[in-house]
């Protein structure tokens, strides 16, 4: 589900060897914030459509055709899940009581928006001297699902 929502390769979000295990960290964090029922309901909706193309899954879960502000709380949970992956932080969905916060230092250093920008989290670069004087590698090198990978 996270792969469809984020547009990233699932093998990038949850690698075979994964000491950080962010997918589990995020799952547990979100369940603690919104409750198991809300998470189960979202996952059940996902399972019913999981054979559809990834973009279609994302659009359905996020209810993108419904005007902003009128989408369901389930769609707002899906937004919060993308925000965890992209920004490493919890943004409490409307109507919930949680606090906006950075989930962990690893959630920050692995946050995906920097990959979307073909860069690196500020303060956490794995690149080497002078890389900034050349254009970056393509989005697929940053884990984005560009059509080939799953």
């Amino acid at each position: 589900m996270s792969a469809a929502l984020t547009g990233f390769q699932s093998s990038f979000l949850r690698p075979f060897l994964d000491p950080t295990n962010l997918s589990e960290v995020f799952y547990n964090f979100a369940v603690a914030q919104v409750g198991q029922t809300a998470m189960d309901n979202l996952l059940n909706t996902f399972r019913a459509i999981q054979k559809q193309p990834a973009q279609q899954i994302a659009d359905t879960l996020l209810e993108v055709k419904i005007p902003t502000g009128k989408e369901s709380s389930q769609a707002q949970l899906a937004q919060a899940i993308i925000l965890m992956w992209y920004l490493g932080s919890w943004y409490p969905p409307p109507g919930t009581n949680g606090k906006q916060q950075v989930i962990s230092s690893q959630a920050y250093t692995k946050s995906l928006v920097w990959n979307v920008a073909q860069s690196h989290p500020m303060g956490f670069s794995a690149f080497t001297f002078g890389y900034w004087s050349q254009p970056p590698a393509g989005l697929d090198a940053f884990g984005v699902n560009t059509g080939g990978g799953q």
Partner: protein
Amino acid sequence: MSNSQYDVVIIGAGVSGNLIAKELGLAGKKVLILEAGPAIPDSREQYMENFYLALAKTPESPYPSLAGRTGPGVGTLPDPAVLPTPRATVLSIGGTPDVSHLIQSETAGVSGTTPDNQPEVRELQFSSTYERIGGGTAWHWLGSVPRLVPHDLTMKTTYDVFYDWPIAYSEMQRLWGLAESEIGVAASVAQQQPLQAAIGMTYPPGYQYPMGPIPSSVVDQTVSNGVSGMSVPGEGSEGGKEYSVFVTNTPAGRNSEPYQDRRVCAGNTNCIPICPIQAKWDPTVTLGDALNTGNVTVSYQSVATNIAVDGNNVTQIDYLKWSYDDKGNLQSTPASVSGTIYVAACHAIENAKLLLLSNGQKGIANTSDQVGRNLMDHVLYLAWALAPSQVWGYRGPLATGGIESLRDGEFRTNRAAFRMEIGNEGWNFACGDPYTTTLDFITGTNGSQLNPGATRLGGTALVNTLNDRLTRQFRFGLLLEQAPQPDNCVTIDQNNKDGLGIPRPHVDYGFDKYTLEGFRVAADTCSAIFQQMGAEEFTQPTVKPYPPDKYPDGKTMGPGDFNYEGKMYHMYGAGHIMGTHRMGTDPDTSVVDATQKSHDVQNLWIVGSGSFPTVATANPTLTIMALAFKSAEAIKAALGA
């Protein structure tokens, strides 16, 4: 002469204090540094963890939020009244006294006219911040080290405004050379050569920077191509003159090759708030050298409260040594220390505060009545745009290039000059990106102005949209020259004290016509360049309007906003706090001499950017260190070393 165990007592372990300590220590002199804040940690990992976990990654976010206590201070704004060493921070500045260390009466500019009918804006928020920790504010300096241009030192002689510096350009060239070696500056004299014809920048024959330049970013290259052949016209009496616009690689205090046992820059794009690998020089490097001389001692958590004088001589420094007991209660013990020579190196605002507090709050070193006055910043005009093609910001050091060619000209008779820094961090400074745009396209808001249709996206559509917007973002940060004005001043606020019972600084601040005219031209110049490049401008003149419930009278301007000739502007702090104890040859109009020695007090040096009589347009750290070398030479001579 004192028979103390110390030859020199320095207050403040920052750029100037550490350099003077190192130079004196190398000369075999015994030095004590009193540092108000907590010690430098053994490893910067704790500071990095604070940074990673901070929601608002402000310049001060890695550093102790409660001085002396460790651990992340996420989302808290502690009351300065309970802290031993409160300081100005981005989140607290402009706030009420229960959050802001600096006391200011109002923060949105009030437009008016002076008695001689010139336009002015008063009651502006002073927007620059500083640290009070071991190593000082330059933990989070940017690392740009341009030199001043020759006319910066001769504003009175050349343009008949303000003051001349009491130091010749050739002498400054010698001192900058020493500072560039200490910092380890990466730059190429050949690359700076076009600035000789444009703004008179020269180097002594054969001079070479310690290491080759930091490569220019794709953003720099794009702006450089985009302004190719461009010029901007002079105004008024300068009609017909054209100022050429071109990009120059910026000299950098970060390593392009290993130097002083520190690594080369890996482009973490995080010079501010903190370089994770110390590829950028910072004052802890020089302090390490100072301690290695075996002649330098640092006393942390020691806040100077009084520079005691007897006639024209300092006799001792009174200070409070503070700590937290195991219940977390702040405790302090009064102490005193004496030496032969004393150096106040607490940065421009705290230096002024200490001088004014001393001698039973009658003040010292102030026959000129200039202590605390002429407070200046490189008030920053920020302009941002989307480039017509991808420039891939958020990569490399925060800044690697700039437009320097508009830093000098006849126009300085009438208005502020500026240097244009090109940012490599997209719209991070401009609107808190990549966070704001990401939130916009996921939740259907428009804080970035890039999602006017309130679209909500996910999956590949989200990736492609964000990739397009984020990789085309770039910005200019313009460092404007600010006029020295006696009514821009630091005074003592008796009604608001810190946790040690020390009165806090009160700041009055505003702009005169010279600075306002600079803003007008700055905004026009940025727009002209964006247009020339085919870039779409998104600069916003109001950044944080007051909430309607707080100002029901319909006030729409926010902190740092002002109106000039019917147009709205927003000013940011550059973090360059200057001018509160200016240097000069005349004791009637200046506080210190060319070596930064007090005109009044024979064994007191007052050092740092507070000594700048005018601020010009160069980032100040290089010149702060150059002047500290000159002070160290004078102190050595005074001690007979």
